[in-house]
C-alpha cells in the first residue's frame, strides 16, 4: 500500500562494487541511519514488494556521506535476485534499522577481530571502533583464495597487524581462520578480547580456538528473522541456559556460551522452501536468457531476410 512519501525511505543505491561472482557491495543512501548506526548493528532489507525481509549486518556507515554499506553474498533466491536488480540508481523497497544492541566496544587494550566469508565485512566497523578507542587491533581474515580478497586496505588502515588466511595459501597463510587465530594468540598473549563474525560453523570453531586461551570471544548471530524488532521470536537462540532473541537481545553474544548446534539446526528451518525458490529462480533466469537469445535470433533472421 502506498504511504505518504516517506522522508526516511529513499533507500537509493548510490554505489555498487562486485568483489567476486557471489559477493557484492551496496552503498545505500539513508542519512538518518548513517548517523545512528553503530558497530555490530544490522538492518532488514526488502528488495521489492513481494520480497522477504532479510537481515544484513551493517558493514560500514558514513555519516558525512549519509550512506550505509552492505556486503552481500548471493547464496539464496533473494540475494541472487538482488545481485541482478540492485544497480546504482535503483531503490530498495524497504530498509529498516539500525537494529540490535550495538557491540559493546569494551576498554580492551588489545583486540582480535576475526572475519570469515560473509563475516569479513561486518567485522570491519568493530575493528575501526576499537581502533578509535585506542586499542591495538589484530585482524584475522579468511578467504578461499587470493582472488576473493576484498577490503584488505580498509582493514590495514585500522589494524595494527593483519593476518590473511586462504584455503590454498595463494595469499597470507595457508589454512583456516582458526589457524590465524592461533597464530595471533601465540604472538600476542596479551590479547584480552576477540570478536568473530562469519558462518555459524566458523564462529563455533573460532570460539573453540579461543576457549583454551581464556579470551572472551563475542560472536554476531544472524538467525532467521521476520520483523527484527522482537515481535516474532523466529530468531531465538540458546545462550547458556537462556533463550534470547538475537534481534533485540543481540545480535552479539558470548561465543563461549552460544549453542551453535542449535543455531545451525534452526537455520535449516526453511531449507526445502529455500531450495525450491532457488530452483524456480534459476529456471526463470534460464528462461529469460533463452527468450533473449530467441529474440536475437529472430531479429537476425528478419534482418537477413530484409537484406535478401
Amino acid at each position: 500500500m502506498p504511504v505518504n512519501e516517506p522522508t526516511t525511505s529513499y533507500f537509493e543505491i548510490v554505489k555498487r562494487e562486485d568483489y567476486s561472482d557471489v559477493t557484492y557491495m551496496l552503498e545505500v543512501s539513508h542519512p538518518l541511519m548513517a548517523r545512528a548506526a553503530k558497530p555490530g548493528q544490522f538492518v532488514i532489507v526488502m528488495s521489492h514488494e513481494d520480497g522477504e525481509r532479510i537481515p544484513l549486518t551493517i558493514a560500514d556507515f558514513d555519516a558525512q556521506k549519509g550512506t550505509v554499506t552492505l556486503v552481500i553474498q548471493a547464496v539464496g533466491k533473494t540475494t541472487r535476485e538482488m545481485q541482478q536488480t540492485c544497480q546504482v540508481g535503483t531503490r530498495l523497497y524497504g530498509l529498516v534499522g539500525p537494529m540490535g544492541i550495538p557491540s559493546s566496544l569494551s576498554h580492551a587494550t588489545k583486540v582480535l577481530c576475526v572475519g570469515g566469508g560473509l563475516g569479513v565485512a561486518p567485522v570491519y566497523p568493530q575493528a575501526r571502533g576499537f581502533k578509535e578507542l585506542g586499542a591495538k587491533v589484530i585482524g584475522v581474515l579468511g578467504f578461499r583464495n587470493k582472488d576473493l580478497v576484498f577490503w584488505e586496505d580498509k582493514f590495514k588502515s585500522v589494524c595494527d597487524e593483519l593476518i590473511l588466511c586462504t584455503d590454498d595459501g595463494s595469499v597470507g597463510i595457508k589454512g583456516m581462520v582458526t589457524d590465524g587465530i592461533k597464530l595471533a594468540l601465540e604472538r600476542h598473549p596479551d590479547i584480552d578480547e576477540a570478536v568473530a563474525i562469519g558462518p555459524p560453523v566458523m564462529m563455533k570453531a573460532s570460539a573453540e580456538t579461543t576457549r583454551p586461551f581464556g579470551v572472551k570471544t563475542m560472536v554476531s548471530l544472524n538467525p532467521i528473522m521476520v520483523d527484527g524488532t522482537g515481535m516474532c521470536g523466529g530468531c531465538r537462540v540458546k545462550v547458556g541456559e537462556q533463550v534470547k532473541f538475537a534481534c533485540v537481545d543481540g545480535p552479539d553474544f558470548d561465543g563461549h556460551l552460544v549453542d551453535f548446534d542449535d543455531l545451525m539446526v534452526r537455520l535449516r528451518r526453511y531449507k526445502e522452501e529455500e531450495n525450491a525458490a532457488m530452483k524456480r529462480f534459476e529456471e526463470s533466469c534460464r528462461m529469460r536468457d533463452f527468450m533473449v537469445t530467441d529474440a536475437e535470433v529472430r531479429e537476425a533472421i528478419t534482418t537477413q531476410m530484409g537484406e535478401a
Partner: protein
Amino acid sequence: MAKKRTVRTIPQERTAVRELDPVVRGTNFEEVNCGYNEKEALLESERCLFCPDPKCIAGCPVNINIPAFIEKLGQKDYRGAYDVITASNLLPSVCGRVCPQENQCEGVCVVGESLEPVAIGRLERFIGDRAIAEGWVNIPAIEPAPYKVGIVGSGPAGMACAADMAKAGCDVTVFEAFHEPGGVLRYGIPEFRLPNSVIDAEISNLKKLGVRFECNTLVGRLFTIEQMIEEMGYQAVFIGTGAGYPSMLNIPGDSLNGVLSANELLTRCNLMRARDFPKVDTPLPLGRKVAVVGAGNTAMDALRVCLRLGAEKVYCIYRRTKAEAPARAEEIHHAEQEGIEFHWLTNPVEVLGDDTGNVRGMRCVRMELGEPDSSGRRRPVPIEDSEFDFETDQVVYAIGTNANPIIGQTSNLGLNKWGYIQCDDSLATSLAGVFAGGDIVTGAATVIEAMGAGRRAARAMKSYLGLRDDDALESPGTLFGIDLREHNYARVRIA
C-alpha cells in the same frame, strides 16, 4: 417514536448474520462473517429499547452513544449514525469486527437480561462499512496549532491518538517499523476476520486528516524518544508500540524446528503474504497436524489460519476450560464450526523432536480446575499420571506476550518491573511531553482498549500543549471534538 418499545414488543430473536459455509471457508481467506445487509440491520435496530439509563454506553471502552446511533440507523439516517459513532470511535468497521462485544456493550445490554442482547457490534460494522462504501469521512475545519506531534507505532492506539491530535490542529507524524502501517490490525488479525481493504480505508481517512505515515522507521534505534523531543522539534510524543515480545512455554523442545510463536505465523501469513508462496518470497512451511497452545483471540486466528493453509488436523491445546478461554465467543464458535479440535484442560509438558531437529509430537498432561487464582479464574492443576503423547509436526505458541524491550533499551523512560512503560492516570510517562498507551503500558489487551488509551493520551497531550479540548466539555453536540454550533464546522464528502 410512536410507541414505547418494551422487551415484549421488540423482535424476540436476534437477527442472524450470514456466514460463509464452514467447509468452503476453511479453504480460503474470505471474510467469514458477511455482515448485515440493510434489511437485517433495520430489523435488528428495532430491538433497541432506547433505555432511559443505557448501560451500553458505559460498557463501551470509548463510550460510543450507542442508542443514538441505533436510533439514526432505524430512521435510515446512516450518515447521521456514522457521525454519532465517529464522534467517539475512529474505526467502526474495525471495532464492529474485532471488539469482544459480549464483555462490553452487549454484555450489559438491558435487552440481554431477558433475551439475546442487541447485536451492537454488527450494527456498528454495518454503519462503518456503509461509510467506506460511500466514501464518507468527517473532516472538521481544523484550526492549525503550532505543534509537532510524533506517534510511535501505527497500531490501534497510535491511530486513535493520531486522529485526535490531527483534529486538534497538530502536525502529526506516525512512525512504523514495518513497511506497511496498521500494526496488529495488519500483521496480526487475518483477512477472514478483518479484510485489508478495511484497514486501508481507515488509514486513508487518517491521511485525509493530515496525518503522515513514515514506515521503515524503528524509533529508539534510528532516533530516540529523547531526540524527538530535544532535536527533532516534536513538542509531544505518544508511544503505542504494543507488547509484542512473544512468550515461549519454556518446556523441553521449545527450540525445535516447527515450534513457532503465533506472532511469527500470523506475520508471515498476513503481512508477508506467505500463503501465496512461491509467488511471494516469504516461506511458511505448514504442518499436516498442527497444535496451537492457548485459547485467546490470537490462538483462534492461528488455528484458523493453519486450517486455511491446508493442515489436515488442527488442535487447540488449553489448560483451562472453554468457559475461561479469553477469545471472543464468536471466534471460538467459528473455529468449532470449521472443525478445529479443542482439547480443554490439557497442558503441554514437552515438545518431542526427531533426530533432525523437527517436531514429531507433543507430550501433554490432563488438568483439573482447582481454587481461583489472583485473576479470579480457577487455577488449573495437573492430574497425576495423566501424561500422554500425540503426533504433531507443528506447534504454535499463542500464550501471550511480554513487553518489547527496544524503547526501554534506548530511552530513560520509567518502566515497571515487567518492562512495561510506567504512566500516571492521564497516561503521561516519566518524561515531560511523552505519553504512552496500549499494550506497551497495560500488557496484552484488545484493539478497542488500545484505541481508548490512545484517545485518553491525546486528551492529556492536548492539555499538556495547552490546546482547547472540546471532549472535556462532554457536550453532546460535538463531532470529532469540534463543537457543532461553531460556524467553521463543515462536513465534507470525498468521492
